[in-house]
């Protein structure tokens, strides 16, 4: 049976032993990633629904409380995240076309954008904390001379929960992108083996997707 030996020789190094072909391995990985992306959408949908419930119960309160958010900071962060999504897509394309340099550069740019996002978020959060615009019992806007309607603390509850969970996703994104960057530096990826880059890309685009809906709802509502 020389067949078996030859088959073994033909297997590329990145093909795990439990898959028959690279294509099979790739679509299994991608299927898993898409299922995860779908559960992410379902998880965030619960928070979006909570937002709409609060909005239905207290329409004036949500409008007035959201006026305290920094529209410009939110807008800058939207552009930063969209740019990072763009560089991520270019990174996947670079891996597909064996462009090692462009892959490393685009991954670094994506990580840099993620850090910029978190820095802007840090300044936004500190401004909110300074003015006592906090959820639940920590809400202290009146002591800081800001007159807001009753139950405004509920709006800041949903604001911090939604942007906080999204921020956690950005931090996790920085970690997985760094891991992919290290693997890219080791020249692990090629036009035949790039599914890991693509899957991290799918994760990163989901983070972007959530923000695309978060930004108008929390910052721009009228």
């Amino acid at each position, binding site marked *: 049976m020389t067949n078996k030996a030859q088959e073994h020789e*033909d297997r590329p190094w990145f093909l795990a032993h439990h898959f028959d072909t690279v294509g099979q391995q790739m679509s299994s990985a991608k299927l898993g990633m*898409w299922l995860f992306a779908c559960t992410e*959408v379902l998880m965030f949908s619960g928070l979006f*629904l909570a937002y709409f419930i609060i909005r239905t119960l207290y329409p004036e309160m949500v409008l007035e409380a959201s006026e305290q958010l920094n529209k410009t900071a939110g807008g800058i962060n939207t552009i930063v995240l969209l740019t990072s999504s763009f560089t991520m897509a270019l990174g996947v*394309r670079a891996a597909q076309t064996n462009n090692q340099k462009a892959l490393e550069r685009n991954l670094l740019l994506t990580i840099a954008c993620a850090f910029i996002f978190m820095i802007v978020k840090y300044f936004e959060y500190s401004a909110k904390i300074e003015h006592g615009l906090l959820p639940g019992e920590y809400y202290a806007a009146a002591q800081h001379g800001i007159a807001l309607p009753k139950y405004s603390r509920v709006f800041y509850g949903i604001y911090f929960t939604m942007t906080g969970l999204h921020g956690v996703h950005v931090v996790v994104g920085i970690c997985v992108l760094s891991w992919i960057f290290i693997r890219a530096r080791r020249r692990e990826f090629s036009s035949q083996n790039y599914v890991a880059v693509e899957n991290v890309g799918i994760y990163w685009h989901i983070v972007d997707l959530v923000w*695309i809906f978060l930004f108008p709802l929390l910052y721009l*509502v009228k």
Partner: protein
Amino acid sequence: MAHTDGPPVYLNGKQVENPHEDHHHVSPMWVFSTVFGALLFLTILTYLVSYADLGPASLPVAMIVATVKGSLVVGFFMHLKYEDRFYSFLFVVTLLFVSIFFTFVLFDMETTGDLNDEAGIRYKRSVEDASDAAEAAAARLAADQPAPVPVGGGH
């Protein structure tokens, strides 16, 4: 070739004809650049529209723009447009379940008030809010008219 003699290979429940030939779709650069430009344009549009007072139309408009942006990200950046249709099926089913979730809860939110009124059920929250509002109105009235009108325990 030794490969063709091997066992049949299946992908997503379908047998693959030539399992060792991979076809990867690579989007050209201009597609990504165009999508990115469109996303930036729509972001600036959402931002500007928020200053133009559209009244009750502003929420639907913002949601439509966000949906268009989201579709661009999912379709082109996440490459869903060029993938096996099975992934699109998964994603659409997810959105279907999200819409069921939203529809039923928000429908309940809209109608439960009338049903409670009919049954004479009042939320503690709305009772308290109503008495707060009445108190505030009474205080304003008292401030406007210096002649003290004795406000009793309320009828």
